[in-house]
């Protein structure tokens, strides 16, 4: 009995010693790590860099209040591509088309709500210019819609758009993307038997039957006209169209949800759309979008449409953007 007790005592003491040693070690290494690669360029030792990811945006201070990034969020970029429509500039290399519809779908995986942030195609921001061999050539301030053209019209274009949108949104992570061009839209809408839209306002300039409040089922062609129509002679006409596009996307998601397509049916649709569609999500993750309910109206990136020399320019208001991003992506610390 006494022997047993001694044993236990020994083990406890040893454990205590080891714990003490570990704590001392941790304290030291934490203190070291913080300051070791502090300062200089020439001599700085980047000792702590291995495998450390960028966590810089997670905890921030804004107007004296501490905020933490809402880690239950996931942002998916939805892109509507137009290959033939109103091009902003002639001197772009790709034939991949331009991203005419740019919607950031902000999914809250905690309460299954979805917010839509609309990014005007004419938003002026830093885009990356690549040469024909996909080598980075320069960065330039231009309409964000053009960024898509500096890729291949599929995975590379989407990757470029994800980076550029993330940078536009002050480095908020954008994890996935779906892009669809007009042909793909036609095909998919016809396949699911059309999209039923309750017109939130008067759209009779597109079709006389689109009066406010009317419930209309659009087939592929009508859907294309609905999301595409724009009077390019009117400056800033892409803004009301962006509103309409978000109305369409909402109705489209609702339709998919109602039909409750299986993963294999979604796969069939993706195959059917062929080159007209690209996504880095699998059918199962696309299907998981059904479980989200859209909260509120589309939020438009804060800014102002300005008539450029030849083309419209949408200038972001940086103060308003910052507070919008805090509102959308952060929670105040207790």
């Amino acid at each position: 009995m006494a022997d047993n007790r001694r044993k236990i005592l020994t083990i406890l003491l040893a454990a205590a010693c080891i714990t003490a040693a570990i704590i001392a070690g941790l304290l030291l290494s934490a203190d070291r790590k913080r300051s070791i690669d502090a300062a200089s360029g020439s001599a700085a030792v980047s000792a702590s860099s291995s495998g450390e990811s960028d966590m810089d945006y997670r905890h921030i201070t804004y107007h004296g209040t501490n905020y933490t990034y809402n880690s239950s969020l996931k942002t998916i970029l939805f892109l509507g591509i137009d290959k033939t429509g109103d091009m902003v500039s002639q001197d772009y290399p790709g034939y991949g088309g331009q991203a005419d519809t740019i919607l950031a779908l902000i999914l809250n995986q905690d309460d299954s709500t979805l917010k839509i942030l609309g990014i005007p195609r004419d938003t002026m921001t830093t885009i990356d210019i690549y040469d024909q061999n996909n080598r980075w050539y320069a960065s330039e301030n231009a309409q964000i819609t053009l960024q898509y053209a500096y890729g291949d019209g599929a995975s590379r274009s989407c990757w470029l758009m994800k980076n550029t949108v993330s940078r536009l949104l002050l480095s908020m992570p954008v994890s996935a993307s779906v892009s669809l061009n007009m042909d793909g839209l036609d095909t998919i809408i016809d396949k699911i038997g059309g999209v039923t839209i309750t017109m939130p306002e008067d759209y009779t300039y597109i079709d006389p039957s689109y009066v406010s409040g009317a419930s209309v089922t659009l087939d592929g062609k009508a859907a294309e006209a609905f999301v595409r129509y724009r009077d390019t002679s009117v400056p800033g006409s892409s803004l009301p169209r962006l509103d309409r596009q978000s109305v369409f996307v909402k109705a489209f998601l609702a339709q998919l949800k109602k039909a409750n397509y299986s993963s294999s049916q979604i796969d069939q649709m993706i195959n059917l759309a062929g080159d007209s569609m690209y996504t880095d999500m699998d059918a199962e993750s696309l299907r998981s979008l059904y479980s989200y309910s859209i909260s509120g109206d589309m939020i438009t990136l804060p800014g102002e449409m300005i008539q450029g020399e030849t083309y419209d320019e949408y200038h972001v208001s940086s103060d308003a953007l910052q507070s919008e991003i805090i509102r959308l992506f952060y929670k105040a610390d207790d």
Partner: protein
Amino acid sequence: MKSKKRLIFWICIAVASVCAGYASYYFSSKQNNEKVYSEMQQEVSQSIEKAAVSSPAASESAPAGAVIPVDFDSLQAQNPDIYAWLYIPGTEISYPVVQHPSDNSHYLNYTIDGTYGYPGSIYTENYNAKDFQDFNTVIYGHNMNDGSMFGSLDEYKDESYLQANSQLIIYLPDRMLTYRIFAGVVFDDRHLLLAYPLTDPESCRSYLDALGSVRDINSHLDTSVPVDEHSRLVTLSTCLNTKANARFLVTAVLTGEEMADGR
């Protein structure tokens, strides 16, 4: 069997006490090293307060020039490499600035009194002249956990803090330079003065462009402050504990230069 256990037990004790000993040595030496600065700071801040009380009256009677609250003679007697004093009103930052004549990394690891280890010094490299006439004088310092040295620069990630604490002062033996802080930017860890050589006006321009093109929730640049390649800047550089291979830069532009009293 029993003796084996006992041996393990004593080894554990030994390891733990060595660790604890080293830890306490490490922390106490760091604290000692930091004391060098707090003593200097106290003297300077007292003189700054005194100057603040006496100068308004003095300036009414005669344009007497700037009061230099730093006793450079006595500081340089301690270390001849001390050549300037950096002061940001409203913050913890009030430090002597050193430059080693040949070894640019020396003061990364050495305290102002020559002691090896943290917190090191607030220093420039010999790419910069010591008269703050360069387009951009880059001042380095460790981002210490306790907020000392450049540990409090993190606060400039909040734009409202930047606006509220935008004055930066450099004291030289013969003059006082006043700067306006206009940017707090998360940047990569490129060596600024090699990447943007001071001799080339175009590269000065591109440094400003590079600062302005950073888009990040923690980066701010006040575009209402006029700055161009003919400006004279001070850039404070420190590391970030939240991001590898990055530096946090606080950049200020010269707004006033006043010769010292009696010079």
